[in-house]
């Protein structure tokens, strides 16, 4: 199938690792698994996890990925590595040798990022594959349980997927209900409320909707609670990757570039490597290429402040703070960032609004930040429970929700809560209720 052997890959890996170590990278050991194209697409559908819970949406993801790769893909072709220790990574056998070398160098960057970036510190990389495997086993048993069965399991999972990323992404310290009550009573403003028995439940908005349902839904059976907790903990595991996509791809690209240039490759490998590198890192019109953005920022940091600061940045930032800190007018102009919109007209052409000149670059920066770090996922929280009605609120940041989707999500939440659910949001600057 290929013109190189596993031994050759291993010897390249030794060289790559040596260079990476000398540069100061510090990564989880990597376990590479070779596979063919279909296995690769399969693995991608399950986010690279060796074991994953069953659901039709992963079947759909397979079909979509397969279609996409058939028609020309985005990003680095066929790179897949997971946040685990050891980091499991996949090498597709159809890749030519130069691509495998590139991917291996790229993976080291990712693994170093997973190990060192503090957004990942609570993801328990040592045990994640076991957790996922165990979750799979339990869900499989519910599916096979004649008193439950696949339809009920699927319905619950579909519903949980609707609010999968409405979690507490700020990772604030969670006060207990008692602590909150104590604080509540301390505040003089609340005396009236206490007198009239108008203590809101929950006292503070709850951003982790699945947790709220878990703790407050009276009718949940054990298997339902288990599934909700499985999906919830999965979200907390994956969210750091969503929050740091730009940095992570930039970091991995930064190092694959450095490492490969240090490998002294023969032309037959070096030239296609450069070609692929440029292809992967080219700016996409009308969208942001995280590889491009991240790579350019790390290059800028190294240029202006030295490599040490690069290492520090990769440790302490997430995409939002990273861009806030380092995206200045000069870089914005260098990257030819712009904003575009429909100018308030429905179904109109999308045209450019701001350029990265003195006037417009701040707008550009805002728009970029709005699209990274999970900022394109709306924040919905539990505001209050009144009687048996669950009241949710959308933390409106200027962007309206898609009503059709919101409607269906609320329907799904009702399936779990089993009582009325209302969502308050703003549509076209007016208060709006979805119920």
């Amino acid at each position, binding site marked *: 199938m290929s013109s190189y052997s*596993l031994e050759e890959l291993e010897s390249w*890996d*030794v060289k790559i690792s040596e260079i990476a170590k000398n540069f100061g990278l510090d990564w989880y050991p990597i*376990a*590479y*698994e070779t*596979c063919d194209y279909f*296995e690769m*697409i*399969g693995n991608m*559908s*399950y986010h690279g996890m060796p074991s994953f819970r*069953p*659901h*039709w*949406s992963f*079947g*759909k993801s*397979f079909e*979509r990925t*397969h279609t996409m790769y058939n028609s020309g893909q985005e990003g680095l072709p066929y790179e897949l590595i997971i946040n685990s220790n050891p980091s499991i990574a996949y090498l597709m056998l159809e890749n030519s040798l130069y691509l495998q070398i590139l991917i291996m160098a790229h993976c080291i960057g990712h693994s170093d990022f997973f190990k060192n970036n503090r957004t990942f510190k609570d993801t328990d990389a040592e045990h994640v594959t076991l957790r996922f495997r165990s979750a799979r086993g339990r869900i499989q048993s519910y599916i096979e349980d004649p008193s439950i069965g*696949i339809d009920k399991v699927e319905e619950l999972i*579909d519903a949980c997927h*609707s*609010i*999968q990323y*409405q979690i507490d992404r700020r990772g604030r310290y969670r006060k207990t209900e008692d602590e909150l009550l104590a604080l509540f009573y301390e505040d003089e403003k609340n005396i009236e409320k206490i007198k009239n028995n108008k203590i809101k439940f929950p006292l503070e908005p709850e951003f982790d909707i699945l947790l709220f349902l878990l703790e407050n839904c009276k009718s949940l059976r054990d298997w339902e609670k288990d599934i909700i907790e499985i999906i919830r903990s999965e979200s907390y595991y994956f969210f750091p990757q969503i929050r740091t996509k730009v940095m992570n791809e930039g970091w991995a690209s930064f190092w694959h570039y450095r490492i490969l240039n240090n490998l002294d490759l023969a032309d037959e490998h070096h030239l296609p490597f450069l070609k692929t590198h440029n292809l992967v890192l*080219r*700016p*996409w*019109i*009308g*969208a*942001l*290429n995280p590889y491009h953005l991240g790579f350019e920022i790390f290059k800028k940091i190294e240029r202006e402040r030295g490599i040490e600061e690069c290492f520090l940045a990769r440790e302490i930032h997430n995409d939002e703070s990273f861009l806030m800190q380092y995206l200045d007018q000069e870089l914005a102009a260098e*990257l030819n960032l712009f*904003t*575009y*919109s*429909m100018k*308030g007209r429905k*179904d109109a*052409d*999308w*045209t*450019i609004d701001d*350029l990265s000149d003195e006037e417009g670059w701040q*707008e*550009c920066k*805002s*728009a970029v930040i709005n*699209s990274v770090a999970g900022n*394109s996922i*709306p924040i919905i929280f539990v505001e209050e429970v009144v009687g048996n009605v669950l009241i949710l609120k959308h933390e409106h940041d200027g962007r*309206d*929700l*898609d*009503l059709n*989707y919101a409607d269906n999500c609320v*329907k799904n939440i009702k399936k779990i809560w089993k009582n009325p659910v209302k969502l308050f949001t703003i549509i076209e600057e007016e208060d709006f209720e979805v119920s």
Partner: protein
Amino acid sequence: MSIFREHKTSADRSASDRARHKKKIEKAIREGITDIIAEESIIGHDGNKKIKIPVRGIKEWQFVYGDNEGQKKAGAAPGNDISQGQVVRKGKQDQGSGSGNKPGNDKGEEVYEVEISLEELAEYLFDSLQLPDLEKKKLKTILSDRTKKHGVKTKGIRPRLDKKRSAVERIKRKAAVTRDAADNNEEVEEEEAFPFHDNDLRYSNIKNKPKEATNAVIFFMMDVSGSMTRDVKFIARSFFFLLYQFIRYKYEKTEIVFIAHTTEAFETDEGRFFSRSESGGTYISTASKLALEIISKRYHQSAWNIYAFHCTDGDNWPEDNDKAADTLFELSEVSQMTSYTEIIIPGTSPAWQSDIEKNALISKIKSKNGEKLKINRLTSAQDVWQVFRALFGGEI
């Protein structure tokens, strides 16, 4: 130091989830199928051939932002030759949508292709469907005894003598005698012939194994006169495709005979069957007549399960109607199922044909009361699936 492992298992980890997904979009696939299958060649593919069907997949409901016409999105350009007001993406008014690379969060119109193998197609489209009840009855009576050799025995009749085995036994005996002689230091006489002994002889053991017929032959018959438009043939082709896949799914071996006709019938191949357009009138009876001839020559009904499907646009020379009904009935009597299907796209039937005339043939066929003779009407590609299911006992 990295570890390198070769992926060992051949299990397809996504198989079950993909199957479940396909089940959920069954309806979308069925709708997508009628568009695709008319393009597909009917015969000559094994079960592993894949058909790509574009589907609008099931939406996964999550909270997402709407179009937000006022909201600004960020982009980057390869060069600085951009200016305010420049169009980045055409709006929906122009029927165009964004260029290739969209970020993963774009909820867009999710149209993607689902690959289905013919096996899978058959499995969940046809699983709940049955061959006509009569078929099961027939199967029990179409039994031909098959004789099969099963080992040897020492006694038997002359015609069953297994000469080869007998010869082997003789050689064995000769070798034993020679050894014996050598042991006893006797002279071994070189004999010219070492005759057969009764004990050498071996006879074939015969077992009777009743064989069920698992062969099907399908007669696809179609009017190819000038009145048959491309659209009508398109619908016929979709219908034939499903019929073929279904019957093939149920039988081990399926053959097809294509019979095209105008005022005369002729056997032909798939390509010409669908593309040839003849001029002239139509005698529907000629098709069934030819089918009956072919059956008597090549596909005897005791060995073959026969299916016949005739598609026309209902346009027959009136003087042929009686004969058409007769021959169709005759054909149905030797088959498991014969179906006469009229494909009439609303608004396109010839103006000179009165309503009475249109129904004349159908009335005659109905009056035959053939148990195995079915009558269908198709008006569009969407009907195909309904009619098909009705034929084989599924709910509509």
